[in-house]
């Protein structure tokens, strides 16, 4: 069965529709003992910032019913370290490498894009629009179609011919409006959703569980929200949509394709079992057959209302 997906013709071609999600697969190297990472459709790396970032205070992770609450605060060693120490060790000749980029100012997004896009090993960039905009009192870029578009436009101008994927949060009044705005600003694809903000508390200690007080919820608990967002966006934009949120098996992949996604990113399920993403890749053809799907392109967006 032909599982190939073209997100940007000739530039961002995936051998299958399954990518790793930012924040859950490290750089990809961490999972090499558990499977062949070149068999994935692509690797979206953990979030990078222009400069090294120490991240949020501990604890950073709390288990929740059907999900994980986390606040890592984009701990990373900075884009230059990634380029110098990590990228050369990744099998970028065999699998698309897509750094997820984070910034507090539009200018930082530009600089990050310029640095990373200049690297042969970088196939595309995913822009985390859930970042707080330091020029707007910490409002997230994606909360406003104008600031979201500005960030994407800034990245596009410095990304050369490297495709730019806009990652959207569901926590905005109208995700469709923001999707339209980033498409107009030049985004080559949209991924959604980012994590949903939540809170875990310790009754005995009468304190929040996470050091940062609030965190982002991921896992199966958010899958219905992600499906809704993908479905709404896929109907109004012409660029491909990558579904993210609660994918744990091949059938989940089909659910996202059914509502219009071109591809999916597997996130926190990798924490439940490091073989999860490799198993999904392996099982997808058989599960397609089980559901009578002969052509995933024809199946995409075939939800009947």
């Amino acid at each position: 069965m032909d599982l190939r997906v073209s997100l940007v013709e000739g530039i961002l071609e995936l051998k299958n529709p399954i990518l790793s999600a930012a924040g859950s697969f490290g750089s990809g190297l961490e999972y090499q003992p558990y499977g062949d990472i070149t068999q994935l459709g692509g690797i979206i790396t953990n979030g990078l910032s222009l400069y090294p970032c120490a991240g949020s205070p501990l604890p950073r992770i709390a288990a929740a019913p059907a999900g994980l609450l986390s606040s890592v605060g984009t701990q990373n060693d900075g884009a230059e370290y990634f380029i110098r120490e990590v990228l050369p060790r990744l099998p970028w000749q065999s699998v698309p490498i897509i750094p997820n980029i984070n910034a507090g100012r539009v200018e930082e997004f530009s600089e990050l894009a310029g640095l990373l896009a200049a690297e042969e090993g970088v196939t595309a960039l995913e822009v985390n629009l859930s970042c707080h905009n330091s020029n707007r009192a910490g409002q997230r870029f994606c909360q406003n179609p104008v600031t979201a578009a500005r960030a994407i436009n800034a990245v596009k101008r410095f990304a050369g011919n490297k495709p730019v994927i806009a990652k959207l949060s569901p926590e905005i009044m109208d995700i469709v409006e923001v999707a339209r705005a980033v498409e107009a600003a030049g985004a080559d694809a949209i991924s959604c959703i980012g994590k949903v903000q939540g809170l875990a508390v310790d009754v005995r200690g009468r304190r929040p569980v996470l050091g940062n007080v609030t965190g982002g919820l991921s896992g199966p608990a958010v899958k219905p929200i992600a499906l809704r967002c993908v479905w709404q966006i896929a109907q109004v934009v012409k660029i491909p949509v990558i579904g993210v949120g609660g994918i744990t098996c091949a059938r989940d992949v089909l659910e996202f394709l059914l509502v219009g996604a071109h591809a999916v990113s597997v996130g926190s399920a990798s924490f439940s079992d490091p073989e999860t993403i490799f198993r999904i890749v392996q099982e997808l053809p058989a599960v397609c057959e089980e559901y009578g799907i002969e052509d995933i392109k024809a199946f995409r967006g075939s939800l009947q209302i």
Partner: protein
Amino acid sequence: MISPIRTELTVTDNVPFGQPEPGLGGTHRYYALTLERPAWKNWEPGQFIMLRPKDGGTVEWARPLTICRVTSQSLVLFFRVASEYGTDRFARLRGGDKVIVWGPLGTGFEIRSNTPTLLLARDAGIAPFAGYADMHPDPACLSMLFGHQHPSSHYPADAMASRLDMEHLRDRVPGDCEEFYRVSARKMQEYKENGGICLACGPMDFLYGVWKKALELELPTQLLLSARMNCGVGACLGCSTITSKHWPDPIRAGLPVHTCTSGPVFWARDIDLDAVMPERNM
């Protein structure tokens, strides 16, 4: 570095220790979980595994457990029931149940023959020292100080007492915990004078005190950090430890490292627990 493997194992036994506790709905607080032995070529005491029940559905998260012992037939894990979505499920495992395990993960304790070695353990922190005593070529060099909140029947202490010199200090009244810390510090002083080393495992507050004393005495000391690990492979960034200026790789000095991959066993001088636990340094 020992390469980890992911494997499916069968539970052979799950033995509760001590008495059931009303606060836990009548369940026990401590368990020794025995699994069939994984096909590991090697392992080191202090390393851990990630474990989750196989039939737990799609929303089961794995939890890290320190390796207690590995025999020719079995892998033994000793754990404390601590969380609603974690170790409480492990308490319900029974013989014949299947679990998913990946490991061995992380760094292990230093084993030095002919060197006086002080083992400092508090509560479930006793777990890795069973395997340590098994593997040590010269167990006569080992001496353990074990501080605990509950009666010794809650811990695998009796089985270990036959293999190494062990002193117990149980908290019976308020202030006993501090007495354990004082005795620990006194023993560390003795081992410094005797050219020994110290290895410690237990809650972070306890390890912070050991860390401070180790730096003060310049006693070679390793700490097994019980930070909240999540993925066990360095991908989730949930467990972070800040290195000191002595970190072996100067490029990473003063920066965060993953506890699960750069640790969980660290030399005290290589890390900065004041940066990890700023509330303790106020």
